[in-house]
């Protein structure tokens, strides 16, 4: 018996044309940000290889300004734009009903305005504070306002999704929420709670401070609030990709997803275990070692949903491979549709994510983290996660999503395939370089090409690998933009009726305890309790904030 993952009445689904257009615009805004981000990414990679190209960059003052552009554009603007656009679409499709056009429009305009403000502040040299903007390094107020608007755009998107869901629920009392809509909505519930930390930090402290209303900041409170959001944000980058891996990839490889319930539990685990950002502060003063260890334990628990994902998604891939004639223990791997750029890119992204997960476990490992904290190991790790599991999956999703939105055939399938492999091989070399550099003590976020001490052993080799890998990643990204632009501008018109989504072999039970998985109130309450238990004492300790740190704009 199989069950559809979306709510499907008799008629076929079609999003209104203006909503389809708004979703496209949102995605193109994200890709424009990615384009700016990767150009600076190439310069970062070459910096590790001891080549300083920043002095030749038009309009760019320092290495750190370039690094700020790279971070803000890639992991804030691109990811939020993609989540806004893609997850809106999957929610609409999952519920089989249109969204609120006004909210969709408002989310796009807010994101555009926020990105423009932040870009203006950074590119005029008034916000070289990196995307972590640790106070008391002080950026221009337009930078903080821009970031605020960017976050507000995700809240507007949330409102849109919740509105659609509540309308659907009113019409379908007693029914289970269709899986595709369920995981899409949980992604945004999760982010709404997670984003509270950075929102409080920016709106209550950093923005008034940069406007001169507050005389200073409490740097530790600011840092702690930042990381309250700063860790879960990585799952906000990842969960839209999980939506694709769970709900779309099985269909794209002719397989099926096995268990509906397992997927819901995975997403709820991410939701409930939000307060683990303290593991970014293992090396900080002012936080007790006991609490740090508790958070290390919780961080380990968050590996479970990703390990379960590896199991479920690989199972779905195996079902597909066997249906396509694969046999034997591993034969199914070779019968997967490797010729489809969308599938190939995402399977390669999954492979990179395995390495990303393992290196992440090392970062999370309490005292072992001391070996690599704030070294090049860390960007080595997260270019395997956000830099490829996420970015390469976005590209893979784009290979069916943009043809669907534009109603045009994908241009240059072979180039798209070459793109995925080039990027994948590139990131492996790149990460190998940074990881070995980190183990040899090379710090992250440092203009290595400008240091005035002799290079310690191991740094030069690490830097060369980083430069070579980063160049390959850059070529991969350029090919992506070629395929994207050619598809949008010159793609052959065609009719694509629907997005690809799977069915599940095991349906969601209609009664019993598991029905509670759909009652978000319980899970949100549990999440808030855990957040208060972990963060309550720390925040309480900092109230009222001691605004003794006056700020520095020496960048």
């Amino acid at each position: 018996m199989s069950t559809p993952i979306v709510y499907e009445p008799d008629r076929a689904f079609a999003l209104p044309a203006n909503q389809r257009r708004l979703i496209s615009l949102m995605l193109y805004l994200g890709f424009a940000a990615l384009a700016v981000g990767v150009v600076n990414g190439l310069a970062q990679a070459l910096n590790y290889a001891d080549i300083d190209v920043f002095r030749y960059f038009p309009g760019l003052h320092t290495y750190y300004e370039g690094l700020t552009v790279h971070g803000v554009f890639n992991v804030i603007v691109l990811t939020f734009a993609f989540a806004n656009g893609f997850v809106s679409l999957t929610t609409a499709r999952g519920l089989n009903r249109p969204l609120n056009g006004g909210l969709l429009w408002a989310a796009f305009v807010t994101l555009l305005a926020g990105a423009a403000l932040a870009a203006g502040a950074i590119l005029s040299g008034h916000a070289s504070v990196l995307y972590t903007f640790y106070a008391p390094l002080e950026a221009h107020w337009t930078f903080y306002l821009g970031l605020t608007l960017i976050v507000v755009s995700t809240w507007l998107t949330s409102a849109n999704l919740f509105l659609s869901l509540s309308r659907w629920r009113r019409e379908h009392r007693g029914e289970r929420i269709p899986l595709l809509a369920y995981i899409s909505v949980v992604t945004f519930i999760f982010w709404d709670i997670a984003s509270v930390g950075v929102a409080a930090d920016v709106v209550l402290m950093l923005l008034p401070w940069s406007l001169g209303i507050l005389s200073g900041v409490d740097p530790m409170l600011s840092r702690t609030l930042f990381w309250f959001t700063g860790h879960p944000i990585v799952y906000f980058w990842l969960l839209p990709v999980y939506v694709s891996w769970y709900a779309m990839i099985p269909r794209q490889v002719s397989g099926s997803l096995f268990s509906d319930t397992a997927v819901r539990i995975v997403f709820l685990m991410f939701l409930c275990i939000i307060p683990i950002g303290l593991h970014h502060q293992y090396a900080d003063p002012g936080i007790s070692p006991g609490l740090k260890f508790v958070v290390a334990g919780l961080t380990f628990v968050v590996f479970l949903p990703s390990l379960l994902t590896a199991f479920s998604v690989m199972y779905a891939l195996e079902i597909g491979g066997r249906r396509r004639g694969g046999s034997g223990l591993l034969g199914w791997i070779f019968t997967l549709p490797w010729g489809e750029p969308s599938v190939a890119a995402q399977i390669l992204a999954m492979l990179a994510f395995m390495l990303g997960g393992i290196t992440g476990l090392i970062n999370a490992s309490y005292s072992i983290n001391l070996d690599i904290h704030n070294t090049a190991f860390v960007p080595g790790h997260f270019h395997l996660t956000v830099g490829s599991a996420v970015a390469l999956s976005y590209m893979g999703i784009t290979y069916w999503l943009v043809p669907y939105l534009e109603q045009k055939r994908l241009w240059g399938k072979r180039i798209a395939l070459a793109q995925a492999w080039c990027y994948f091989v590139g990131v492996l070399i790149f990460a190998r370089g940074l990881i070995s550099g980190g183990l040899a003590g090379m710090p992250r976020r440092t203009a290595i090409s400008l240091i005035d001490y002799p290079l310690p052993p191991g740094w030069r080799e690490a830097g060369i690998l980083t430069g070579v890998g980063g160049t390959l990643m850059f070529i991969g990204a350029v090919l992506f933009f070629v395929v994207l632009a050619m598809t949008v501008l010159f793609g052959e018109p065609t009719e694509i009726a629907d997005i690809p989504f799977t069915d599940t072999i095991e349906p969601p039970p209609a009664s019993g305890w598991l029905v509670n998985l759909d009652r978000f109130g319980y899970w949100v309450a549990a999440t808030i309790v855990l957040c208060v238990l972990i963060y309550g004492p720390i925040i309480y300790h900092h109230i009222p904030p001691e605004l003794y740190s006056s700020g520095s704009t020496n960048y």
Partner: protein
Amino acid sequence: MERYERIFFWFSAAVLGLLLCCLAYITLFMDIHLPGHGGRIMPKDGQPLATAVLVTPPFNHPGIHEIGPGRYEAAVLAMQWIFFPRKIEVPAGSEVTFRVTSTDVIHGFFIPGTRVNMMAVPGYVTVETYRFRHPGNYLLLCHEYCGRQHQTMWGEVIVK
């Protein structure tokens, strides 16, 4: 959930639990700790933070002090873009307790090849103790971005 899913779930949980036990063992029985909290430095009304730091012991006399046989305390200031003192000299085999604070923005304090790896946060003192067994020149790096000349913020620990 199917049987295989359950088996996989509990197997994964067991592996993660085991790794966590290893970490607990390292901390409890191998004496490898995270950097500790060494107190606060709070400026009085209107006083700049740097002034408050420079009148607070041990930062009123930054540098290396012998506090017992083979035991030293190093009081180090991190500021844009130097460590003060930049050079720390100790005999091989000595145990050094680093006390670090910042006078301006957040800095890092990292000695590659050792487990001395901590953050210097304005208003806080961070503490770490390490025994330098082997002679040699160790780099001391700021590994948190702290402004324009961040890459020039480094020093040396010379173990003789």
